[in-house]
């Protein structure tokens, strides 16, 4: 299918725990700086998981975009700010006029927004008072109570339906896709953007994801699923992909986006091209909702498909930016899959997990790690997998333990695998005009 136009990366924008300047964020990541810690958004005492990776600042950015108010919703604030940074990085203004807008698209993945309990609680208290037993209160009278307008806004924001349209207004795009494939989402949007450009449907696509899952509901909820770390006494070392002591991932929050463009469009407007998106592959495990296929068949399949799409052989890959969640099952299955897809070459190249430093940004993870992959190609330092102390016999590749490594990296295979068995791999490549 590698018969269409070349796709290039011309912009990157992030609002993530390490900061909101991608160049600075990369420097920290290359230096192995951790951003995971004890949760501060609420008091997690008594929670099964008390560790998170939080955005502890309010990003500068638009508070209003077209008809959308974003200032009353942290997730939308992150979205608009990340999009603004990506477009500035790319030197792009919003397109004007139907013909220009027709050539632009947004592919954004959204998780869930602010916890709806923040709004349901006050309604319940208004209806039933504080003293009624919540577990026995009459729901019919709760349902009959109309929320106030701010409460209705809050409840509605749970779905983040306006996030992708907000980005579309910022870009001036006539085509908007809001998608989700769980933890694969970020890379999924990049791959979908590649398809749109390669087949000639769009010249410019803003792709990425947003997720704010560090909430009082989702953290304990996913902890009950045994997906999250329980290393509460040592939060800075809780995210430890591929290490024998890994026990689950750290929930992270933020937004990350890439501007992808056809080569001809980027050249025509004199844009700086940072890398090429050379290929991508999709697969589905069709196996189980929670567990990856243990032999990594689906994961290997999407890596192989990405290589085919890029017209590359396994030996063309210089580095794997792993999904590497720090869960016992994923990291073992991913290791098997990398070896299946790349053969002996897997043992000769660095494989690292950026999540060791900022946890798992779920819907935004693949896009953030995509931005960092592009920076790795440009700067020549492979980020480390930090907190790697005890080798796991099932994870026997070179994970770049604890310190970044200077290396000439021309091609990176970026993996993203989601709950439900959805897998996406993309290949970033040094741009040669």
């Amino acid at each position, binding site marked *: *299918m590698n018969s*269409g136009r070349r796709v290039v990366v011309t912009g990157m924008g992030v609002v993530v725990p390490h900061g909101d300047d991608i160049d600075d964020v990369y420097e920290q990541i290359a230096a192995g700086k951790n951003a995971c810690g004890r949760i501060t958004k609420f008091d997690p*005492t*008594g*929670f099964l998981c008390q560790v998170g990776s939080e955005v502890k600042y309010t990003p500068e950015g638009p508070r209003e975009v077209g008809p959308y108010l974003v200032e009353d919703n942290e997730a939308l604030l992150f979205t608009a700010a990340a999009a603004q940074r990506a477009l500035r990085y790319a030197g792009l203004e919003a397109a004007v006029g139907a013909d220009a807008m027709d050539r632009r698209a947004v592919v954004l993945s*959204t*998780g*869930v927004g602010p916890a*709806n*309990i923040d709004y*349901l609680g*006050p309604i*319940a*208290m208004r209806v039933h008072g*504080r003293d*009624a037993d*919540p577990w026995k209160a009459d729901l*019919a009278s709760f*349902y*009959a*109570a*109309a*929320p106030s307008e701010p409460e209705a806004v809050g*409840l*509605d924001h*749970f779905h983040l*339906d*306006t996030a992708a*349209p907000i980005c*579309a*207004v910022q870009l001036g795009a006539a085509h908007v*896709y*809001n*998608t*989700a*494939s*769980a933890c694969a*989402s970020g890379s999924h949007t990049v791959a979908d953007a590649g*398809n749109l450009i*390669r*087949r000639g*449907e769009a010249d410019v696509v803003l792709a990425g994801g947003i997720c704010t899952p560090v909430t*009082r*509901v989702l953290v*304990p*909820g996913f*902890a009950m*699923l*045994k997906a999250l770390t329980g290393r509460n006494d040592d939060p800075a070392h809780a995210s430890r992909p591929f290490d024998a002591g890994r026990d689950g991932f750290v929930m992270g929050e933020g937004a990350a986006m890439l501007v992808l463009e056809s080569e001809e469009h980027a050249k025509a407007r004199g844009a700086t091209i940072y890398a090429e998106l050379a290929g991508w592959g*999709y*697969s*589905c*495990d069709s196996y189980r*909702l*929670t567990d990856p296929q243990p032999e990594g068949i*689906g994961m290997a399949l999407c890596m192989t498909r990405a290589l085919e799409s890029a017209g590359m052989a396994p030996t063309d890959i210089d580095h794997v930016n792993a999904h590497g969640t720090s869960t016992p099952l994923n990291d073992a299955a991913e290791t098997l899959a990398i070896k299946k897809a790349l053969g002996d070459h897997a043992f000769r190249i660095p494989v690292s997990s950026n999540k060791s430093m900022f946890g798992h940004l779920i819907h935004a993870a693949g896009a953030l790690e995509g931005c960092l992959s592009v920076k790795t190609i440009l700067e020549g330092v492979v980020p480390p997998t930090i907190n790697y102390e005890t080798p796991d016999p099932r994870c026997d590749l070179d994970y770049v333990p604890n310190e970044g490594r200077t290396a000439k990296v021309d091609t990176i295979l970026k993996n993203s695998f*989601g*709950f*439900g068995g*959805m897998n996406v791999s993309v290949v970033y490549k040094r741009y040669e005009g």
Partner: protein
Amino acid sequence: MTDDRIFVTGVGAGTPFGLGVDALLDGMLAGESRVVALAEPHGSLAPGYGGEVTLKARDLRSLPNSRDMRPGTMTRYTFLSTLALGSAMAEGEIPWDDGDGALRRGFYVASYTNSDRFDKYVRFAHHVIDKDADGKPVIVDERVPTAIRKFSGFEFLKLMNNMPTAHGGIQGRCQGPCNTFLGSPSGGLQAIGRAKLAIQDGLADTMYAGGVGSSIHPQMMMVRATRKLESSSDVAPDQAGRPFDQDATGIVPGEAGGCIVLERASTATARGANARAELAGYGEWFTPPSVNRGVPPTPAGPVRAMRRALERAGLEAKDVDVVFAHGESNNDLDRIEALALAETLGPRSADVPVVSMTAHVGSTEAAVGPLNAALAVRVLETGKVPGALNRGNPLPEYKGPNGAAPMDIDAKVALVSVTTREGIAAAVVLRKIE
């Protein structure tokens, strides 16, 4: 990239009329509405009625690959998606257990997810809330660890918005591209449009594409009631859904799942499949609403989406024999959609029947596009077009036929369009295979 033609080889649905598209079409042809008074506790929510799917988990047993289905792990959305996909797989006689065939199959579905256990969330929220020294509501964190134990971990996995796709990937043995489309009732047609392109891009030979929605969910019914978007409680349930009618009072809660099977023409032909129609064209366009939660200011977006779909099909407005529209039953959006239809169809507006299922089943969110596409396939096969239910006092902007009686027409081309309040319009064109 290939330009292979794309055939529809199966359609499926789970609606208030039951399992399968024929049940829906038969009900619509009979002029029936399945919008009824809701049982408690949903009956306490305005407007007190809706189009509810009464199918149960046991109804999954008749579907292909039912042994891999886990109803206990499904939200309402996933359940409806599973019904629709299974019913489409059954009609398409897809050889889902064909080993390597799975490598070339994918699934795109549009969905929201909302927890079925909203009652628990309300009680949870009530348990953890208190007042601070100033009397303002504040969440007491130390109560959370106890309260959260009322849930199981799986309830949070179920809540993830890609779960309908995840279940479908297992149900349909899909190892190709799988994704979930969110955010707007047009998502279902976006799923179909992108699925078409996935085949044409060589990513798959067979794609299941659909959408699911349940606007009966309490949280969103409460939000709509506050915003005065919900239909009036004072209207008889079977009279409430009034697409393109001046007497419409708002959104009628409904729920459903719809799905179609798309196959590369050469793949369908090779396996001797019953090619029911051709998916000939797809188009979309985004126009931001004039104010947040308003409607698009002009019909330009849906007009562009429909024209793009026709253009890609190599057709013109004069070729359209029947339209399947959204018809939300809110005058502000229906006016925009009616203007768009009139502008797109031009002089043909007065003659081309416009079908909307809102009067029969209520608002089905992202299911509306795939269900309409499935209905369009049936109409191309049978020539039987449902009449216009509850459209006795049409909006001045609506120029189409208005008769309540069903029609027999020789339909060769169907245009399916979804215009949305979010501003994302999408359209597909289906053509009879001759």
